[in-house]
Every structure is written in C-alpha cells, then in structure tokens.
C-alpha cells in the first residue's frame, strides 16, 4: 500500500474523527507528510489520541514519523496556534483536507455547530491565507440538499435566504437540522474564500458512512448503529429478565423466548417503506475520495453516495436475523397507533434520522461516476453479509465501549451524538 515517499505535505483537520483518522492513515500510507490538527480531550493530549487511533488503524511505526500533530481548536482564531507555528505551516502545506466538524443535529447545539462548521472553516482559511496551500478538500455532506425533494445536483445549491447563520435560527423550511444548514453555509464560505485566495476547492459529499464493508470495523457507532444498538440492548435486557428473573416484566410487554433462543420482541418500526436510507461503507468513501482527489481538476462537487437506497424493512429483517429475533417489523405508516414503552424509546433513537430513513432526495452521481467508474470504484451493496460484519464488530467491541483494547476508557472516536450524514 505504501507509495514512494513524497515531499508534499497535507494538512488534515478532524484527524481524531471517524473519517479524518482514516484519511490520515491513508495519506501516510501513500508516503505523504501529514500535519494533523487535533484537540486535547477527555484527559488525553492530541498526540495521545492520534497515536491511539493510528494503533487501531494499524499504521506501521515507520510511517508515523511523517506525521506531525498540532494541538489546535478551530473555534478560536487561527486555531489558537502561535505565529511561528503558523508561519512554518504556511510554508510547508500543499493541500488541506478539512474534516473537522460538529455533527450534532440538536437545536440546542445550534451555536456550537455553527461555530465549528462555519466559523471553524473561516478560521482555517485565515490560517491558510498567504500559504503555499493550493487546494482545499472540503468534506461536506450529501445532505446540504436539506429539504429538497427529487434530484439533488452536484453543484452548490443557491444560498439565498440563509442569512447570517450566527444570528438566524434554523431555517426549517429548507433544512431538517442545524447540521445541514451549517454544512450548506460552509460550502458557500469555502467557495467564496477559495476564489478570492486562488485556491482550488473540491467538495466531497458523502451520504451516511458506516464501517468497513468487509471487516465491519468502525470508529463511530451512530446513525445506522443507534437503533440497532437499542434493539440489541432490549434483547439482552429481556432475555436476562426471562432467564434470571422469571420473565414477569418481559411478559407484560408480550416478549417471550422460544426454546431455540429466539426472542419475540414486538416493536413496530414506523414509516417503513419510504424511499429508504443512503448508506456507504467507509472503505468506499476512502477509495472514492482518493480517486476524486487524483483527478486533475481541482474544482468540483462530488456526491459519494450509494446508487441504491436501503429500505427500513431490509434493515429490520437483517436485525431480526442477526439478533435472532421475531416481532421487530416495519409498518408503512402507523404514526397514529398507541406506542408502548419500548417503541417510544426506539422511536427516539431514530427520531433525528427520520428524514434520512425515508429519504425523498435522489443524489445526482454524474460527476462522481465519471471519475469513479473508470477506475472501478463502486459502492458495495448493503447486503445482510455486510450488515452482519458490521454488527458483529459492533457487538464485539460493545458498541465502542471496548474499542481500545489497551484501555478501559469507554470513549468512541466520535462522541455519542446523532450525526454523520
């Protein structure tokens, strides 16, 4: 995998995140020099956090000497770096991959999300202004499309009506959440500023990223994982109730265990067969990123998405099969039905993803496929085999609690929050 050593230096933000860490590993494997901007958190230094991730990503020691880690917070001007470091950075960075982002959907975190996603980008561009950096790779999201229905093009959507996101509330007519709105705004900021400083801008718009399609390995257990994890939790809870405590509580909710170990867990998943959810595995994202980056044209917007959405009913079937369950079923409508406690809890796990589970957006892939098809980069189908690999890994590491084999700290690379599309 390792290419020739290169003198080129890539600055990567968000290197401690799910996608950013994989990109750091990939760039190092290519023999490039990497400068990662990262934060101290949860009692660990930026460097300790990066090292832990590189261990997890199995990056050989000899490649790591080409990695420089700078402690920086993009919420503060110029990341809070000192003038000498900035000058050094400006003299050596050739390109920048911007992954740092706050991926929370909650209205209560609006200011924080906007500060990181919009002001953070501005701060980064201030840092790069006047540097030798010639290209910005902006990791955005397919969901900048917001509440558009039907075809969403690989262009910047119009900005009108968004105003100053720092002052304005969420525009609920155009976006489902603050995350979408801020990522949309960030694309425009990047476009305007890169044009002014003469920097190439490539915008990558992945849909929802899950683990590796072959191994199931992942650093993030949000999005797809959240509701499945809730089901797994209920399975353990009521199996224990039945086996160890007489099953009275399970019985009250109509839950029972068959002799072969199958648990009947009656949960009706609402909104079943809309248009489904667009899921891509991290390995596809990485290959697509690399192929697009390798194109000669530094400017462009690319959807990195799955040509086929996965229906909720498919995920429900996969979940029943993988966890040996019956009773979990998807209903086409059912919003008016009374819900029991389990269902209410389950609903809350998918609530923030409602718009992504019944996605009426169709992402144009023309520009991306023009690059990806010729090099044979194709998104793997989300089959039961892929689902099972992902869930097996998730269960093995207890949904991230045992992710770091050498540490007991129950942290995941991305925090527990609704995110990542």
């Amino acid at each position, binding site marked *: 995998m390792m290419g020739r050593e290169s003198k080129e230096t890539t600055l990567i933000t968000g290197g401690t995140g799910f996608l950013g860490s994989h990109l750091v590993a990939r760039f190092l494997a290519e023999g490039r020099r990497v400068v990662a901007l990262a934060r101290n958190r949860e009692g660990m230094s930026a460097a300790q956090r990066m090292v832990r991730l590189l261990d997890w990503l199995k990056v050989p020691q000899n490649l790591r000497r080409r990695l420089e880690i700078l402690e920086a917070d993009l919420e503060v001007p110029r990341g809070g770096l000192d003038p000498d470091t900035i000058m050094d950075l400006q003299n050596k960075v050739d390109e920048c991959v911007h992954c740092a982002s706050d991926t929370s959907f*909650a*209205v209560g975190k609006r200011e924080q999300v906007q500060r990181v996603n919009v002001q953070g980008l501005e701060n980064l561009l201030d840092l790069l202004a006047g540097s030798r950096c010639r290209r910005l790779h902006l990791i955005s999201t397919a969901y900048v499309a917001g509440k558009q229905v039907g075809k969403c093009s690989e262009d910047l959507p119009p900005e009108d009506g968004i105003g100053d996101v720092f002052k304005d509330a969420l525009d609920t007519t155009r976006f489902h959440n603050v995350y979408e709105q801020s990522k949309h705004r960030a694309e425009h900021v990047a476009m305007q500023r890169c044009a002014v400083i003469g920097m190439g801008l490539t915008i990558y718009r992945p849909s929802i990223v899950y683990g590796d399609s072959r191994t199931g390995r992942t650093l993030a257990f949000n999005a797809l994982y959240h509701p499945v994890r*809730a089901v797994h939790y209920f399975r353990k809870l*009521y199996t224990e109730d039945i086996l160890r405590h007489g099953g009275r509580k399970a019985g009250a*909710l109509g839950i029972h265990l068959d002799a072969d170990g199958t648990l009947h867990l009656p949960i009706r998943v609402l909104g079943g067969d809309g248009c489904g959810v667009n899921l891509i595995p991290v390995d596809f994202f990485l290959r697509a990123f690399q192929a697009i980056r390798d194109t000669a044209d530094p400017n462009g917007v690319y959807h990195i998405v799955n040509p086929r959405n996965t229906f909720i009913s498919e995920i429900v079937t996969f979940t029943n099969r993988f966890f040996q369950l019956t009773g979990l079923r998807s209903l086409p409508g059912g919003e008016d039905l009374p819900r029991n*406690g389990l269902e209410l*809890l389950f609903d809350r*796990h998918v609530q923030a993803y409602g718009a992504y589970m019944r996605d009426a957006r169709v992402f144009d892939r023309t520009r991306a496929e023009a690059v990806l098809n010729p090099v044979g980069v194709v998104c793997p189908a989300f089959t039961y085999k892929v689902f099972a690999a992902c869930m097996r890994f998730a269960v093995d590491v207890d949904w991230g609690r045992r992710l770091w084999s050498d540490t007991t700290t129950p942290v995941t690379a991305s925090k527990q*929050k*609704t995110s990542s599309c």
Partner: protein
Amino acid sequence: MISEDIRHQAAQCRHYAMCKIDYLGTGLCASGAEHQYVSHFPQGRMDLCDALARNVVPITEGLVEIAETCNLCGICDRQCHFITGMRPVEVMKALKKHVREWLEQGNVPVAPPADADLERLREIVGGQWATNDPAILMTYANDPFPLAGPRMPRFVVLPGNRDEIAAVVRYANDHGIAYAVRGNGGSVFGFVFTDGLVLDMHRMKGITIDAENWTALVEPGVTSFELQQAAVKQGFRVNTAEPAATVCGNIVCTGLFSTWSNAYGVNADTFVDMEFLSRDGEVFRLSDPTAPNVFCYEHQPTSSPGICTRAFVRLHPMTDDEAGMLVPFTAFDEAVSFVQDLSRRRIGLALGVLGGHYLSTFMAPTASLALQLQSTLSETLGMRYAVFLVGDRFAREAVRSMRPAVIDAELFRMLLLGLPNLAEGAWQDLVSGMDGDEPAYELLLRPEIRPVLEAILRPAPETLASAVDEDLRDFYTQLYTRPEMTDMVWLNMFRILSSRMSRHKHMFAFLVYVPMDRPALIRSICDRLRQIADAQGLENDFGFLTPLDLGKRGILEYDYYIDHQNPDDAERIRRAAADFEPYLEEISVTIKGVKWLKNIFSQGCARKEAFLYT
C-alpha cells in the same frame, strides 16, 4: 503505634455529630449514650485517635476509659458509612489496641490536674458532668474548618437543667472564666471555641408537646431529629434544621430554615416563645414585656441574647395524602421561575430547587455512585436541576398539569432502589444515543416507559445494597426495606441524607437570602461565587434554593468543598475569602432582598421582615 493510614481516616471526621442521634434505628454508641461527652461518641474517638497518633494528647485516665468502653459493636460503622462512606470501627480497634499495649508496657495514665474551680463546678452539676481531663477536653478543642486552629478549653461541663446552667454561668462570671455554649457538643465552622469553659447541653433533652397550642417545648440539648420524631408521634411536623443540630442552638445562631420554610417561614416564624439566660445569669422569656427586643435586625456583628434554655417551637399539621415530587429542569432560570410560581400560588408545602450534585449526593449511598449518578442525571438525562416539592394530592395534581414530566413518589422509590443500574454504562449509552432537542428525561418520565424502566433498574433493596461494601449489604438491604427510607416526605422531614453533602470533602456553605423574582440575579451570584472558587482551584457547586414568603424571597445555598486536612485548601479558602467576603457584604447592602447569612449570625430570633424587606 497507630498507622498513618488509620490516623488519616480518623482525621476525616466532619464533626457532624450524626453518631449522637439514632437516625438509622441502629441504637447509639453505648459508651457515648452513657457518658454523654463528645469524647465518648465515635466522633470524639476519631479525634482522639488522630491526636494520639500525632502525639498531641497524653494517655489520660479519661482516655483509657474511652478506649475500654468501646465494645466494638459496629454501630458507628453503619451510621458513619451511611453518610460519609467511612468505616470508623477500624479506627476504634486501633485506638483500643494502642491504649491496651501502652498499659501492658506498665505505663500509668495521666491523672487530670487538681483544680479548685472544677470542684466547684462539679458541686453544681454533679461529679461526672464536669471534667478537665485533657483527652476529653481535646475533643472540644478542634474543628474541621481549616482556618480555625485548635483551642483547648479548661473545662467541659454538661449541665442537667436550667438552674445548673445559671449557676455555672454565674460561677464563670464571678471567676473571670470565659465560656462557650455548644448545643450538641460539636462545632463545624470554627465559631464556638474558648480557653475557658465549654457548656455542652447534650444532657438537656426534654421535649413536651402542647397539642392544643401547637407548640413543642424543647430543651437546649434536643436535636432537630429528636424533635421531629416526637412531633410526628403525635401527628405534627416541625420546620427542621440539620438532624444532629440542636433546635435551640440553630434558632439562636442563624434561624431555622429548610425547604419547609416555604410554608413555615424562617427565624421568628418558627417559634412562639423562647427562654434565655442573660450574660449576667438572669432568666427571661422573649414574650415578657420587659424582655430585650431580639426581633429586630442590626446590620452589624451582634451577640446572641444569651443562652437559650428552652424554646416553644411551632408545630404544623400534616395530611395523610402528602407525598414528594421532583420536577426536572435543564435550565436554572426556568427552575427558579417555576418554584417561585408554585410558591406564590401556594402550591406545595416544602419547595426547593436542587442542583444535580445535591440530588445525586443525597440519593447515592457511596461517593463513587454519586459521581456517576450526577453525570447520569445532568448529562445523560438532561436533568441539571430539579424542583423538589412535598404537597398534598391537590398540589401534586396542579404540578402535573403545569409540567407533565415529573418524578413522583413511586418513581423516586424505583430510581433510588435501582440506583446502581440507573448509573450503569450500557443503559447510559442507550440514553445518550437518543440525542434530540428535548432532554431525555421528558421521554423517560412518560408513564408508558415505566415498565421498561422497571426492567432496567430492577429496583429492590438488594439492588441498592449491591453498591456498598460487601459486609454492609445485609444491613443496607434491611435498611431500605423500610418504607421511610425511600419516602421523600420522611427523608425531607428528618433530613438524614443532608450530611452526605460533606461525604467526599468538608463543605463550606454560603447561604444568601435573595429576591426570588430575579432569577438572573440569583444566577449571577452563583456565577460570581463559582468564579471566585475556580480562581483558587476550589471545588464548588450550586446547592439549593428555597422560596419564602409566597415566592417574594428565597434562600440560596452555594457550596465550596475543601479537603480540611490539606493545608493548601486552607490557603485557598483564605484567599477566596478575600474575594467573597467583600462581594457578599456589598450585595447584602446594595441589593434589596439580598442578605448573606453571616449578617444574620446570632440574630436568628429576628423577624424575617426585619432583614428581608429593609
């Protein structure tokens, strides 16, 4: 030889005197109950063990008796663990062993020096109730407040009645002996020290209930816990302070306040009359036309009216449909406005806003579980504050119609008995996964979720007991089988959990009267106190806020936490005092409705109107 580890444990005693009341139904330390000096209760023994290890007290005849009368019954282990998490029996064993070995080496205990004054004092109170044994005196000489150094008295006297107090005071006055009065023998904040004579009121425990007049006559050794017990037996309730604090002492010092003050008032509202012995030995009642006016307020340090010898405390009625309730909030201002609204609408009896730290510390039987619980409540469930209420069924119905997401008595019981599972990781992760715009508690408190919560929490005395040391589990299981231990009304009336606030460190509480209709001002006071503490690296947190007088005023508690054995913390609090003293003094003078409790010190009998609305 007493090991450093044991000494360190012994030095952790917070002097809350909880081992002097039978608050868990375990009975009391037999030796303490018989001899009545602080030195003979576990609290004093802890001090003595620490002092012996540091070689600052000789082995006296009194100390030998103290060591020998400990029968290692284990009561103090159970009592003390419940509130502090400590296991004093190890200390008691070490103390006994040390003294025994010392005696076995042929050493002779030091006899207290002959003293003519002591002989006279003994004539007044009886031979066994006055002493100058250095070991016994030592247990009246120190305090966990780090800025108060030890000060050894010459005598400790335990009078048995008012006439004896009067005679002791006259003798002290005549012979130029300074004296300090201690209701329950203890001191916490370094105020009640003397080189002369300590009057410990512990023997004076008389309580007479006058049902027709709705009053209880209490002697100065009666603790809040004991009075509440006596009142409840006859179907009444009193406004109550810390359980081990004496009722008279509390009224005189700061005035009585609690979450019940919403309905029952503070200071002069809490009693009908009081009897004092003046500094020159004269007895007077406050209702005497010629008595000094103690109902007024002076904004300057003032001395107490004398020694309180009896108080006629107000009794209040109870109804049989009272229950507790917690109403969660994420934002402070919202919680404050809500509690004020309840108060002005006369909804509820006891009312208060509690911080997450307060609530979790009260509920959890160990410090580590409290820490986990605090993060569960605040971070995972979004319940940073809770409005606490005790009310009849009409009040509770009203609250439900105002805020549907509540923790009622049944759910509280469930949460308390399932506490270890509530704080458990997988469940927490599950709830964290529900990231959304409403705090998680709104969903989790819906009635449909209750059966699921029950399966998750598995509430039972055994579940709660699983959080404590293995050898205490049976005891905790038995304890939590008793319904009152999970009853918010009982817990709030007897306040047996309040000492848990000092479990992980000694607590330094700021109490400030505030205008309840100004949540932003209240928040700014908290913010300022937080900044001051943070600047010195002192742990700190919001405690509680209780509305008074139909929501016009309130009493705010903000807490600093100090390791009282750490000289650095003493220095930190000293430096912080240079900031908080002038700040609190200034706002007490310049902002209407704001009064720092320090201003009211020794004016606890004052009418609240005299300092809250002037």
